[in-house]
């Protein structure tokens, strides 16, 4: 849809050579990603959970965890990843992260301490949990890193990725039938090669056909 709009605005632009395919299925990339993502996910979780004792933290770990989803999307198609990953998960990750961070920060004020004063938990929970005062700072930091920053960063990065991929359009019907016909496996296409080419996409279709991208799949939102 978005490329319809773009190409519709510059139908006679002679400098336009060809449209880049947003997704083309590659056995090499899919195999590599399949092999690599368990390790990347583990490394991301490690960096997140060990932020207080080794380099890294919620920001770096959250970015790595989000990059797992980004890699899956690049290997298996953005559209199929989009349906696999619900919008609820992305939104819940980001907002829950803010809520957890803000909650951990605000509760000490209710307990008579300062904003983000982890030691204010000590008089209340110290005996219950059997922790020393400085340990509340450590576990408070870890809670903020894991439940706050990592959640926000991973959620927002995933969301930004799909929002950018969808582009400046309103959600509309996705033409999955044409996609299957083009045997791209996954991604739907703004690319008209797999669709009933409307008038607005006809010249684009000619370009794509000339470029020989038969299995090309863009996105159609």
């Amino acid at each position, binding site marked *: 849809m978005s490329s319809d709009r773009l190409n519709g605005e510059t139908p006679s632009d002679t400098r336009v050579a060809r449209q880049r395919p947003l997704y083309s299925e590659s056995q090499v990339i899919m195999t590599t990603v399949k092999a690599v993502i368990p390790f990347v996910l583990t490394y991301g979780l490690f960096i997140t959970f060990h932020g*207080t004792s080794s380099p890294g933290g919620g920001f770096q770990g959250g970015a790595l965890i989000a990059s797992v989803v*980004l890699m899956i999307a690049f290997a298996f198609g953005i559209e199929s990843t989009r349906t696999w990953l619900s919008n609820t998960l992305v939104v819940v990750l980001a907002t829950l992260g803010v809520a957890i961070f803000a909650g951990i920060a605000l509760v000490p004020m209710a307990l008579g301490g300062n904003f983000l004063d982890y030691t204010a938990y000590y008089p209340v929970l110290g005996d219950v949990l059997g922790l020393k005062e400085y340990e509340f700072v450590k576990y408070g930091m870890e809670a903020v890193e894991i439940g706050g920053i990592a959640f926000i960063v991973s959620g927002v990065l995933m969301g930004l990725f799909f929002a950018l991929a969808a582009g400046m359009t309103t959600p509309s019907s996705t033409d999955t039938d044409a996609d299957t016909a083009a045997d791209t496996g996954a991604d739907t296409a703004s690319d008209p090669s797999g669709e009933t080419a409307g008038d607005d996409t006809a010249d684009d279709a000619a370009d794509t056909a000339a470029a020989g991208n038969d299995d090309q799949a863009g996105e159609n939102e």
Partner: protein
Amino acid sequence: MSVAAPQLAGLVPLQSVGITPIEASLFVFVLLTAVLTALFRDVLASIVVFAAYSLGLALLYTFYRAPDVGLTEAAIGAGVTTVFLLLTIAKTTRPATDARFEAVNWPAVGICGLFVLVVGATLPAFPAVGDPAAPILANADVTGYYLANAYDETGAENAVTAVLAAYRGFDTFGEAIVVFAAGIASLLVLGREVFTA
């Protein structure tokens, strides 16, 4: 707090060893990729070279013992940013020119070169890497306090995290909110109500 230099002597390796061949080659690599990023006509090539530039920077940060910054640069700069840029140009069209490089604007190069010379002239004023007389180590009231007390006060072996999440937790809270706001703003700009749909 009479911390600083004496205690720091045990914490920070203070010898200045000059520039090693690996660092020198990394500097050359970063400079080269930075220039190539600007010169390449094809945006796809620019993005790939820019990712290599970020990777070189991440390695440099690691060499200068800032692994936290290096990790961030590698994950965000070389990784996620590259993916976002690739995603963006996938929705654009490629100009039909065979030229490999952009036409160089020599007056602009001259002005940039002058700027580099002026900034470079201040370089001798900086202390050497690891110099014990450097202000950050010699008058390290704040740095020294963190390094000396972070573990006792927070239980965190990584003093960087102790500063980020405990001593400067309010700043980090603001940064996390900024990331969240960026996600919301992207939805607003794109005129969408959902991230994935």
